[in-house]
């Protein structure tokens, strides 16, 4: 992927995610919840009888915070996937090249006078990537739950029965892409087996390592596919919640 395209896609994603996180509405339409707002942390997510938040009525929520919670829950949630992607080895390469021009292209001089790489604060923080990976797994589990719940719910008689909505597939594909992205992570590869000295003494871990290694070769593609799809999933739920997609059972 060329630096110009990386730049354009990353910038658009950040712009869209910021917008979507601040809207604090239209992220739920029965039975779909946007990945940006899942899990729902405040009871206000569910809206109340006065529909304080449009398009959010009836959202399944954890309600860890009470109704006093005023900030969009997406802002809290997005810290984790954002941190995961910011410290991802692939995205690091992409934004060091595209945003920081370090280097702008191979064998092309970089414009900086001094260079210390990832040895100092803040870039030394990249080393905590594996913790974001662990948190990422929790979010993947939640989004998988959301997808399964959407299938179960959309088959209920309230939706005509026996049919699954398109949105369920959208949520499912989104969850699968996120799993594939997480499992292909370099830290994951290290954790499952890469840190060993003796593959031969740990045959099972060696097998896992081999599997993750195969996925890892596609880490860049999975990074982009999952990034774009997660935004599209939010768009889908947003449009559906705002009533733009009609009210057929296929949404």
């Amino acid at each position, binding site marked *: 992927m060329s630096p110009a395209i990386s730049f354009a896609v990353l910038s658009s994603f950040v712009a869209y995610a910021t917008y979507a996180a601040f809207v604090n509405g239209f992220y739920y339409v029965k039975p779909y919840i946007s990945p940006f707002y899942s899990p729902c942390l405040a009871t206000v997510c569910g809206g109340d009888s006065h529909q304080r938040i449009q398009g959010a009525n009836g959202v399944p929520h954890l309600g860890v915070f009470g109704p006093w919670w005023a900030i969009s829950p997406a802002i809290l949630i997005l810290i984790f996937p954002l941190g995961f992607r910011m410290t991802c080895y692939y995205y690091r390469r992409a934004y060091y090249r595209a945003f920081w021009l370090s280097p702008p292209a*191979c*064998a092309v001089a970089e414009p900086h006078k001094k260079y210390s790489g990832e040895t100092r604060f803040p*870039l030394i923080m990249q*080393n905590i990537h594996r913790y974001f990976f662990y948190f990422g797994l929790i979010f993947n589990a939640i989004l998988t739950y959301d997808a399964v719940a959407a299938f179960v719910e959309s088959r209920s008689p309230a939706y005509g029965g026996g049919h699954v909505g398109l949105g369920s597939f959208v949520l499912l594909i989104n969850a699968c892409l996120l799993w594939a992205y997480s499992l292909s992570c370099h830290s994951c590869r290290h954790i499952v087996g890469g840190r060993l000295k*003796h593959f031969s*003494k740990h045959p099972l871990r060696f097998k896992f390592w081999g599997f993750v290694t195969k996925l890892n070769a596609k880490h860049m593609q999975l990074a982009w596919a999952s990034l774009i799809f997660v935004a599209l999933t939010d768009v889908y739920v947003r449009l559906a919640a705002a009533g733009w997609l009609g009210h057929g059972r296929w949404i």
Partner: protein
Amino acid sequence: MGYDLKLKIWRGDSSGGQLVDYTVPVDEGEVVLDAVHHVQAMRSGDLSCRWNCKAGKCGSCSAEINGRPRLMCMTRLSDFDPAEPITITPMRAFPVIKDLVTDVGFNYVKAAEVPAFTPTAEQPQAPFRMAQVDVERSQEFRKCIECFLCQDTCHVVRDHEENKPAFSGPRFFIRYAELDMHPNDALDRKKLVQEERGLGMCNITKCCTEVCPEHIKITDNGIIPMKERVVDVKYDPIRFFRRKPKAETR
């Protein structure tokens, strides 16, 4: 079918130099090194360049062809538009001796700094008994032909001469990785490679991998695993507290 190829070759020495134009007849199937040899034979007998094998195995003919670090003997003329001149310059990260010959001594200093293989107590002497899966991992790194194209292209030293003392470079990071992954090696070089050999300066932008003529996955299989191993001992608080004393032999 032969044709006349235009070349621009950097001529000069440590005091300076410039691109000089040549036109030489070349034949189908030839590589850039052939064209340079034609210049030596027909136009300018005092042109200096290093080469040995003409088979991409000795690592001596490294240069920059149209600005890209490559082996001259493995770069086919058919990859270029015959109407356009091809520019050949010496590797930029190293001091020029003459024309296309550079002083790659930097790399030998870095090589000498790598603490040698230190066998474990269980198997103190060669021949070592190793499982194939364990051997394979380091065998990828053993393909290195020491052309130093990766060292030349790495922006950490290419653009920052001042980083040279503190940075071993991709070719040696795969050497550290190879030793760290070796089942019979007992020495822990993780802190050393981070604190004194500049592993943290690499920002994994993968240019070394892009130019490696042996297609070694320098970044994915060497540098990133090494960075993760460093995290294990330096930056991961949980592993730090519950590290098993014998972790080194696992």
